[in-house]
């Protein structure tokens, strides 16, 4: 993986408040106890999510609840295989989610192609296209396994280790390169990742590269729609 320690920016804002760490921990605790997961059934594993969220296994007691819009969601569940057509939407959805955001890869297919390893239509390794926080094994995993995975994720968030989303900004060039390899050189999304990376102070030498240069050549800015009635 591209988690190179040198790439982490050294520039840290100085924190003078003695209660800052307590506050950080409290924030992390709160974050871990209130997760909105995006309601997007990308693959067959999605069929085990309704049982997770409803009466029998009741994911809501963990503070996890489905959310219909990516703009308000914290967790992106990639439930199984992602076809190339869906992958474009998943990447777009992921980029639209506000940080901090977490990706859960469910089922075999997100790890190494799964059942569909020979298929021309599905992507094989999810981590090539976006950083993944946690994987849940199974084809498909039972609701209990999903809940265990979500609890592990909560623990990771609570201890402040779940920061793979920063990886997307730090190594954007790598991820974009993989995306371009699959979708062609003209691939683009209307989100501005480099701008966001600047905003979060996560620009490293791997954020920009040949792939982002290629993107900038093609990129068309979004224009506001004309509304006529």
């Amino acid at each position, binding site marked *: *993986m591209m*988690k190179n320690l040198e790439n982490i920016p050294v520039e840290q804002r100085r924190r003078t408040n003695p209660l800052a760490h307590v506050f950080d921990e409290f924030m992390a605790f709160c974050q871990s106890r209130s997760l909105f997961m995006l309601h997007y059934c990308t693959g067959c594993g999605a069929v085990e999510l309704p049982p997770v969220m409803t*009466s*029998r*296994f*009741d994911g809501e*007691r*963990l503070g996890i609840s489905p959310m219909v819009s990516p703009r308000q969601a914290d967790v992106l569940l990639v439930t199984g295989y992602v076809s190339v057509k869906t992958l474009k939407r998943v990447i777009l959805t992921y980029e639209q989610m506000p940080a901090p955001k977490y990706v859960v890869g469910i089922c*075999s297919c997100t*790890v*190494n*192609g*799964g*059942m569909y*390893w020979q298929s021309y239509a599905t992507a094989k390794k999810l*981590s090539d296209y976006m*950083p*993944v*926080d*946690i*994987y*849940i*094994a*199974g*084809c498909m*995993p*039972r609701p*209990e*396994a999903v*809940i*265990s*995975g979500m*609890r*592990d994720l909560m623990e*990771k968030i609570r201890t402040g280790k779940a920061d*793979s989303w920063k990886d997307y900004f730090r190594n954007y060039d790598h991820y974009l390169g993989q995306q371009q390899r699959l979708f062609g050189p003209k691939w683009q999304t209307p989100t501005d990742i480099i701008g966001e990376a600047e905003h979060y102070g996560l620009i490293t030498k791997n954020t920009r590269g040949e792939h982002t240069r290629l993107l900038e050549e093609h990129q068309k800015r979004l224009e506001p729609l004309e509304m006529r009635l």
Partner: protein
Amino acid sequence: MSKRIDWKALGSILSPLKNVQFLARPAITESLEPRVAAPNYRGFHLNAWDECIGCSTCQKVCDNAAITMVKVPELPNDPVKGVRNLRPAIDYGRCCWCALCVDICPTASISLSREYVHTCFEEEIDSYFMLPREQGMHGKDYGKGWAKSEDADMVDLHRQPMEEVAPEDRVDNFEEIVAGFTRQQAILEASRCVQCGMCHDSCPTHMHAPEYIRAIWQDDVEEAVRQMYRSNPFSHVCGRVCTHRCETACSIGRRGEPIAIRWLKRYAMDAVPHERIREIVAEQKPQFISGRSIGIIGAGPAGLTAAFDLARQGHSVTVYEALAEAGGMTRYGIPYYRLPPEALDNDVDVIVSMGVEIRYNTRVGSDITMEELQRQHDAVLLAIGLQMGRSTRIPGSDHARVFRAVDLLRMAGAGEDFETPRQAIVIGGGNVAMDIARTLARLQKQHYHEVKITVLAMEREADFLADPVEIREAREEGIHIIDARGPREVMVENDELTGLKTWRVKAIFDEQGRFAPT
């Protein structure tokens, strides 16, 4: 409660308040900890390493290419016993938990556990690649889930029945006993093969058994013959009298009857006309001629195999044989009811057709000297074999009517007259002893219409050296077998044999494992 609802009969607007009554019902929510899975749950893999033989059948049936065979050096690797030091490793980034690997495992070593929770962070993704052992994925024992059951077993453990000549019909002649497979039987038998290649590894000549079995299954006997001649020019012979170590190693034989590889070979050789076999083998004729010549002394199996291989490499080969016919011990040491001479003739003919020259009745030393050979050829190969018989060296064994096995078989094979005895004792419990006993039984039947043969084996019945099939057939033919008895002295009176003194054998080998019967 009605079966039909008439939508016009509108229900009460309060009926959704039904919900309220659920306040009093106990909750159905499960606890957060994972439940125990069902008794035949298909969870993560378990593999009993002691039972696993590394045949990699699981890898072949896996539809997702999730299984990698990994070499574990500390484990035994003995192809002759049918054991490899390979073990399956599972990629849970591919596995779909269909349990086909469990159902097809020839040894029933793989099973699935009742464990189903595994989560990992991105940096621990290697944990998705697992080498299953007896304990579960996380070292904890959750119990076996889906395991081999008789219902779900996909391995066919039973051989195709082979037709044989009935004992009463076969005992008075030297006709071949085993009928050989029919086409249908051969295809069915070949279809049992899981292509593990244990046979290939255990075979002394490394015959391409998986390939020719596959070809027989595809009803392409010519391809099967082609595969056989890749490594063995004596396919007719080996299809009948081979010791078939392949069948001992066969992974199907772990729990059932091994594939009848020997009979399949014989089937393929018999199914193709001899002319066609010659054509197929001729495809292997060399493209170039090396210009070197090689002399081989002895036209036995070793000499002729060497001649065949050398001829394929483009050398010109001359074989010198002391006797009038080629084949060596295969011709003179194996009774005709097991190996008809025509089969051997065919094999020799194929070898000759590759351009090998055989000079019969040429004994090196008397008809031609070694120096001459060395002068004529670039290289000379001695393939003279082991033709001297062994004796028991007990008192009285130098009597003229005490024969050595090899000599007797040669005499019988060559049709020499040695005065078939009315009564005979065969010392030994191996395959050669059975050959002798059954040959003599046939001769006795032809001459005196009764069989009076006793076989004296030193081993106990359970560990006889001879093939169980041989022993069964010998008994069917009226041969009396006494186990755990060793010869002590041949009793001779007035130059006539009168009997044999024996002792009870307690152990055949001494403490150092040497042959020292007591």
